[in-house]
């Protein structure tokens, strides 16, 4: 549904994102996780067609964002970091305006309006001026605005920011309920949010993707199990299928190489010792083994590690 290939965006000399590639399948929820200024907003703005990428291709719902912007924009609902609201308008007339410019048929506007207001908890707020709403309600209007034309793709930049805990839970439930019919990308810097709502997570830092995984894999590091980090060198291709017949190993991911070395992160179920099996397999496959260590990290630690390692390298 969404495909980003080698996206790079430069602002003058500053590089906001560099070589960002990923895919999102239909009905999937993808979370963008990263510290402030990591390039989440830039990536989302490119996908929403707000500005073009310096390099790379973005395809949304089958259309090239740069070449067929109107076709893409018709199918995308976008909630920017700051909800784009006309404070002097009433909620209803604002939503009607957004519906019209997004091509909702005149006959459907009222039903769509009632539907999104219901969904976003704005049913009693239609006649209120937007400037009189609290921050949380403004955020809801922003969300309603993104949903009004029932888009195939939703791009939500920090959708729960500014909400109180109860509202946060409601919005997360809402987003989850939208999955399946809608393909969703959302960004956040709150870790639990990702594990609660997203099927897949991209961790981004300083404009580069540093990890891409399911939140289960990331959180399994929290609940028992072990992560074994192996530093090795040689032909990376040989790693594929190397540990297939060891039942305790859930999955293996290969990190980006540096100085000819690469890091394998091996997710092991239970506490059973498998390190001797791993080392033997690797040496038999002709790979050089340099380091092996067991990690037990919280999601926060993983996040920090991934994002600070990148800083150290830069």
């Amino acid at each position, binding site marked *: 549904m969404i495909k980003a290939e080698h996206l790079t965006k430069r*602002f003058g000399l500053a590089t906001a994102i560099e070589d960002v590639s990923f895919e999102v399948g239909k009905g999937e929820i993808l979370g963008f996780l990263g510290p402030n200024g990591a390039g989440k907003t830039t990536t989302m*703005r490119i996908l*929403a*067609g*707000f*500005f*073009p990428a310096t390099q790379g291709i973005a395809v949304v719902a089958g259309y090239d964002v740069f070449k067929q912007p*109107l*076709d893409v*924009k*018709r199918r*995308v609902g*976008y909630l*920017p970091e*700051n*909800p*784009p*609201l*006309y*404070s*002097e*308008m009433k909620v209803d*007339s604002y939503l009607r*305006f*957004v519906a*019209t*410019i*997004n*091509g909702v048929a005149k006959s459907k506007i009222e039903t769509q309006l009632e539907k999104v207001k219901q969904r976003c908890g704005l049913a009693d707020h239609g006649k209120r001026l937007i400037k009189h709403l609290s921050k949380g309600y403004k955020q809801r209007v922003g969300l309603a*605005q993104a949903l009004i034309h029932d888009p195939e793709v939703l791009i939500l930049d920090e959708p729960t920011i500014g909400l109180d805990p109860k509202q946060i839970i409601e919005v997360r439930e809402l987003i989850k309920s939208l999955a399946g019919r809608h393909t969703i990308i959302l960004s956040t810097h709150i870790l639990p949010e990702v594990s609660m709502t997203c099927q897949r997570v991209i961790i981004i830092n300083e404009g580069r993707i540093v990890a891409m995984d399911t939140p289960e894999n990331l959180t399994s590091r929290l609940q028992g199990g072990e992560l074994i980090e192996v530093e090795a060198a040689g032909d990376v291709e040989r790693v594929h299928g190397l540990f297939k017949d060891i039942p305790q190993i859930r999955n293996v991911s290969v990190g980006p190489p540096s100085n000819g070395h690469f890091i394998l992160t091996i997710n092991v179920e239970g506490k059973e010792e498998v390190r001797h099996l791993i080392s033997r397999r690797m040496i038999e496959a002709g790979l050089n083994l340099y380091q092996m260590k067991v990690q037990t990290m919280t999601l926060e630690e993983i996040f920090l590690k991934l994002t600070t390692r990148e800083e150290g390298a830069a």
Partner: protein
Amino acid sequence: MRNFLAILKKELQALFVSPIAYVVLAVFFAVGGYFFYIIMSSLVNQAIEMGFRYQQMGAPPPPIDMPFLVMRNFFGILSTILLFLIPMITMAAFAEEKRRGTMELLATSPITNTQLILGKFAAVLVFLLVMLAPTLLNTLLLYLYSEPSFPLAPVLVGYLGAFLLGGALLSVGLFVSSLTENQIVAAVVTFGIFIVLWVIDATAGMESSLTNETIKYLSVLNHYEDFTKGVLDTQHLVFYLSFIFLGLFLTSTSLDSAKWRQ
């Protein structure tokens, strides 16, 4: 078309809920009305004095086309008031959208820049009409009390001129507003450009060289002259319409290039 109308409606709503609109209207009516009164009374006084002088010399007073003189002077003043007020009407057009982030909504909605710009331009033109229309009351008074009555067509031509001049200035205002996030900056720069357009005439030398002719041609006031006299000349129509086109085209270019600069 639907998008254009949606933008137009939203813009009109935005214009007429802002206090700036009412201040502009109030100032315009007050100053315009005051000058109409001044022009009228001073011309009437002059005419009476002249009548006396001719009477003393024993000759019949020459006929004076009072309505023509009043309207011509009034249209002259009108253009000056527009020069001051139009920057206030257009300053928010794009600058405010950028400042509060709603440009992000418009830029990610399936509307074209042309629809957006034309919608905004149509909205400020409607506002200009709202400004100009009540001054027809002055004309009506003049019409009711002049003897013999005068033809209305030249007056309407004058209004057309004021509308076109206003439209040209509004297109410049929209362009400047698309360059900045700050309303005040937009207003001041627009005003600066207007002043240059106003006095550009004076920078031309006396002799008729190509440069001088070009500079004179660029003066927005030169083209306005004939309208105030009630003369409709296609040359001036073409000038204003192409001026407006240029202003809107520059706005579109500026919005396009902003996409790459951000």
